């Protein structure tokens, strides 16, 4: 008999003479793995054993550990089948193909009857790190730069795709070779196409092309906001010609325009192209884990070759919702499921395994129940996640409100947790040191690590929506929010540095110039969009004095705005210059104010061509830089 080996984090042990696998204690805030402590090595006679593998979607991200896909699948199987099933959950957040293949192989020690694989969303993020300009190894950068120099930006994307395909096929083949004749059910992943958008600056070396792109983008976005779909489409198609399909932003505009024109199939194609071009590891600013066409093709081919049953979630979701473009009904964010999404996805697996019930029959059965406090926490987590990962696109406010309102409607007691979250963020301390977090830890609405506690950012986008929604839902609590903010972050007579990642209005901006090197590794804030905003927390009783030290290309206008009101137009140049600006109290709000530097779309700073830098092994700025802010201090007059 061979010596048992670990299965993922479950270590082999013996209890009462029987072999078991035991995981380390679950930390107070949770971890990446399922929370089941022990797995008996031997099957119970008569119970069919399913081993379930996958990424965060499979793990029931934001619901876990209270509700997971594996548990729902087990319940459905036992509800529908004549014989009992057990589903052992080996899904984990941040799962990679290599690690999943290893875990599948190790899991064979449990003699499973069935294997279920639910992954693919992570491939664009985690599978080709060395084909990224952000990978810290200079040699990786050099090879990336060489590919770019050889064939331009598109060749980089092609190289990433090629490597991704090779890697995925190899890992899946390892699984196929390992499991032999064991039945393997594979889910073809779907993502939130309707609501989740990428907003990426274009990667264009030529300054004239960049300027043209931004001019067209501004026009297209303006037309979209005005519901002028045809004009938006025309401009977006011109954008596509400029960026050669390397910028997902363009596809989103095209999809939105088609949707306005009632062409949902065309919109669907554009949104899929958006996901496909959002090749995080190779090019993007901060992509979301979302499976694209490539993933589906590879999975489909491997299923066909190995005769694995394939569950086509995009088709099933479309049929179930009656909509070509799937959205928030089935997704909490970019790819993680709502309760209905989990229920439906697992119903399709159940149907396929049992092979005698159509999925819609199972899907029409009652959905799993979870305590309202847990569901409310899930929705709040979805709001946190949306605020952190969704860029400043028109749907963001709507999506944030959707999640927060669901949280409030599910369990009104979550309001106190929302205020605790605001307080924890506002202190600027690690949340673990705050009384607000301690209170939350002891209450029924406990937020875990996946809900964003460990986040060193003011999170003003989230706080602003919480404050707005609580005005109606819980006015007394809503009144506390500006006071909490003013108490902890309110301006005083000493200057407060706003040009710090903590105060950036857009959380994603803190990772500029590139995701792999946060703003904390540069002294100045580099601005990749024509607008850069900061949170300014102050009362309305006094004027505010600003001191701005910044630079941009000379000869272009710069506008400093507070809550949309222009308060100064300093003349900047390529050298650092210092400017003093007075913000009159009449334009201020009590508490949250938005301070925005509006750069000229033509003011981009000259930077060394990225392919040249990458070939030297240096970090490169793939995206344009409109201006740089060394310091932006504020104090009460």
């Amino acid at each position, binding site marked *: 008999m061979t010596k048992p080996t670990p299965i993922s984090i479950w270590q082999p042990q013996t209890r009462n003479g029987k072999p078991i696998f035991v995981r380390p204690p679950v930390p107070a*805030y949770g971890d990446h793995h399922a929370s089941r402590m022990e797995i008996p090595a031997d099957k119970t006679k008569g119970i069919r054993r399913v081993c379930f593998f996958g990424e965060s979607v499979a793990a029931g991200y934001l619901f876990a550990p209270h509700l997971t896909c594996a548990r729902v699948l087990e319940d459905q199987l036992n509800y529908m089948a004549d014989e009992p099933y057990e589903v052992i959950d080996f899904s984990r*957040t941040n799962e990679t193909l290599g690690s999943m293949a290893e875990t599948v192989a190790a899991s064979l020690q449990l003699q499973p009857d069935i294997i279920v694989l639910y992954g693919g969303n992570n491939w664009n993020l985690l599978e080709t790190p060395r084909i990224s300009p952000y990978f*810290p*190894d200079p040699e990786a950068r050099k090879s990336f730069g060489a590919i770019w120099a050889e064939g331009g930006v598109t060749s980089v994307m092609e190289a990433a795709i090629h490597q991704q395909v090779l890697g995925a096929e190899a890992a899946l083949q390892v699984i196929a070779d390992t499991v032999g004749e064991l039945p393997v059910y594979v889910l073809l992943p779907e993502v939130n196409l309707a609501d989740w958008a990428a907003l990426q600056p274009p990667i264009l070396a030529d300054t004239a092309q960049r300027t043209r792109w931004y001019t067209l983008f501004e026009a297209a976005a303006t037309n979209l906001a005005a519901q002028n779909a045809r004009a938006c489409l025309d401009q977006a198609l011109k954008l596509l010609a400029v960026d050669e399909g390397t910028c997902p932003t363009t596809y989103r505009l095209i999809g939105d325009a088609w949707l306005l024109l009632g062409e949902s199939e065309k919109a669907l194609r554009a949104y899929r192209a958006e996901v496909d071009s959002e090749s995080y590891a190779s090019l993007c600013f901060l992509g979301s884990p979302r499976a694209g066409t490539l993933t589906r093709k590879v999975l489909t081919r491997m299923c066909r070759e190995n005769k694995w049953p394939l569950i086509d979630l995009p088709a099933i979701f479309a049929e179930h919702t009656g909509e070509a473009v799937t959205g928030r009904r089935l997704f909490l964010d970019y790819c993680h499921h709502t309760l209905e999404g989990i229920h439906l996805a697992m119903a399709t697996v159940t149907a396929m395994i049992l092979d005698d019930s159509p999925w819609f029959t199972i899907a029409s059965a009652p959905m799993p129940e979870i305590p309202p406090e847990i569901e409310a926490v899930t929705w709040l987590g979805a709001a946190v996640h949306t605020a952190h990962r969704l860029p400043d696109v028109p749907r963001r406010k709507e999506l944030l409100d959707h999640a927060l309102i669901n949280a409030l409607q599910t369990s009104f007691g979550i309001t106190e947790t929302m205020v605790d979250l605001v307080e924890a963020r506002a202190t600027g301390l*690690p949340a*673990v040191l*705050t009384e607000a977090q*301690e209170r939350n830890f002891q209450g029924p609405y406990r937020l875990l690590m996946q809900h964003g506690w460990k986040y060193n950012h003011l999170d003003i986008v989230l706080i602003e929506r919480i404050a707005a929604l609580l005005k109606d839902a819980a006015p007394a609590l809503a009144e506390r929010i500006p006071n909490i903010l003013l108490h902890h972050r309110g301006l005083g007579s000493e200057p407060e540095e706003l040009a710090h990642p903590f105060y950036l209005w857009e959380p994603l901006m803190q990772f500029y110039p590139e995701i792999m090197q946060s703003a904390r590794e*540069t002294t100045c804030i580099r601005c990749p969009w024509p607008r850069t905003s900061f949170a300014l927390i102050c009362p309305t009783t006094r004027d505010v004095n600003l001191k701005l030290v910044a630079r941009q290309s000379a000869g272009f206008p710069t506008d400093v705005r507070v809550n949309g009101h222009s308060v100064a137009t300093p003349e900047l140049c390529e050298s650092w210059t210092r400017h003093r600006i007075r913000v009159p109290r009449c334009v201020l709000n009590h508490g949250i104010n938005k301070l925005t530097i509006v750069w000229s779309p033509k003011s981009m700073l000259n930077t060394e061509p990225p392919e040249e830098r990458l070939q030297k092994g240096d970090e490169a700025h793939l995206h344009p830089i409109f201006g740089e802010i060394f310091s932006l201090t504020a104090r009460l007059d």
Partner: protein
Amino acid sequence: MVCIVGLSAFYHDASCCLMVDGNLVAAAQEERFTRVKNDPRTPVNAFRYCLEEAGLDITDIDCLAYYESPGLKTERQRHAAGVADDDSSFDPQRPVRAIREKLGWRGPVRTYEHHRSHAASAYFFSGFQDAALLTVDGVGEWATTSYGYGGGSEIDLFAEVRFPHSLGLLYAAVTAFLGFKVNSGEYKVMGLAPYGDPKYTARIRRLVENKDAGDYHLNMEYFDYVRGDRMYSDALIELLGCPPREPESEILPVHTHIAASMQQVLEEILLQKANWLAEKTGAGNLCMAGGVALNCVANGRIRRETPFRELFIQPAAGDAGACLGAAALAHIDITGKRHSETALDAVYLGPAWSGDRIEHLLVPTGIPAHDFRNREADLIAFVAERLVKQQTVGWFHGRMEFGPRALGARSILANPLDPNIRDRLNKVVKKRESFRPFAPSVLLDHAGEHFQLEQASPFMLETCRVRSALKLPGITHINGSARPQTVTAPQNPRYAALIAAFQARTGCPLLVNTSFNVRGEPIVCSPADALLCMANSELDLLVLEDFVIERHMLPAHLEALLEVWLPADGGLSGGKSAVSEHLYTFV
């Protein structure tokens, strides 16, 4: 106004200092802000801090002074790597390019040779009008040991030993052999040495041929740092006759003997070189810097056994402190004058937090701290009583120290009379190896009663014999030595008052003083760091300026929650995605 920023970076211990009109306004190591030990990256946080401390911004700076010559260093790196002189793997432009890009600096960057920066960091901060100069480290550009003379505003480095021959690398190779981390574990070898007998001295001497005058040669047969990927070769393993110690494995007697032998050989060579330098220069003063100048045992012998009457060792003798030298050299280049004629008498050059700021910070934690604002005497009495009761105290007061030593601003303090204090501090508070000694802080006026110390030692850079009538197990090393810090009221009034209060209660005018951190972490910088460190150790008491926190006041679940809060590896991504460091990203 002449405003100069000095920088060290890109090898280990990146740091930044700011000199305004010749006044050293601020200095700090990047690791304190990033919480990544020995962080080598561009010191963006330290740079920002230095400017904020002075109320300046980037438009006020006249020049940046960098502590190395990138061209010469690249030349040596290419030679060591065995690549062509134009090999692009080593880019001489990269350091200055990184400085410009990361710091946003567009003005002049002056570069100074590594050992010149070290020498300047000692001499120009010594207050001496003339002195012999000795800098010893692993390697900078080519030089590994430099000899010179400083007079007025001039430095003349007249002799040097060049790579690959290096006392620093010799010591580092043995450090690596003994299973400790190079560039940070050398002081562990020094601490281990007194536990052993120098039985391996003859063998260690085969590694290095000490020549006449300032020269010495390493026998490169035993080393592997030029071409290979580790410090020593198989020949060294054969020579020493035992396998290299695995990191974190048990320390055997043979390891202590090797450490003792290495230390003895180092001391022999350094003493001979210092004596030669004294003879060569005729100077009565000696200034020392470079990482090897942090070997306080050797320093103590140099003071006692060479003709030099006065010795000044740069408190931040390692690469971090070289930014001071670069700034001082730039000041002379710009103004034609030396920046200061007086000695650096304190290194409290980092950030401070006022009592009110700490109160503001404590409120949201809900910790019911004792508030001693405007009651300093009560605070001192309270803490002294707790020390008498053998409690361990995290002491956070005033501006953070610059350099590797905690000197009463970010210190863990304990009762030196407590017979169990060393084990308790090592095991449960600092979480480090049990052999590691602790140093005392002693009131200068009473130092002579307890130590064979002829002079003030404010920076804890020399060892001496303990000759106290008291039993001081907490601070007396196995060989009867100690590494005292002398404390005076003008330098640190509150700290001096605390030691005096402890003396009033016990008759003992000294305290155990160790750096405020746990193993693997940089010394704390902010109050939040101190709180996290307290929660992550078993400190009994935390003094945050005027506020005192007792262990039972910490939130009930803090220790459990920290399990997932504190990074397991201390930070740098090590070639993996850096995303997880900044986001809780789950995908």
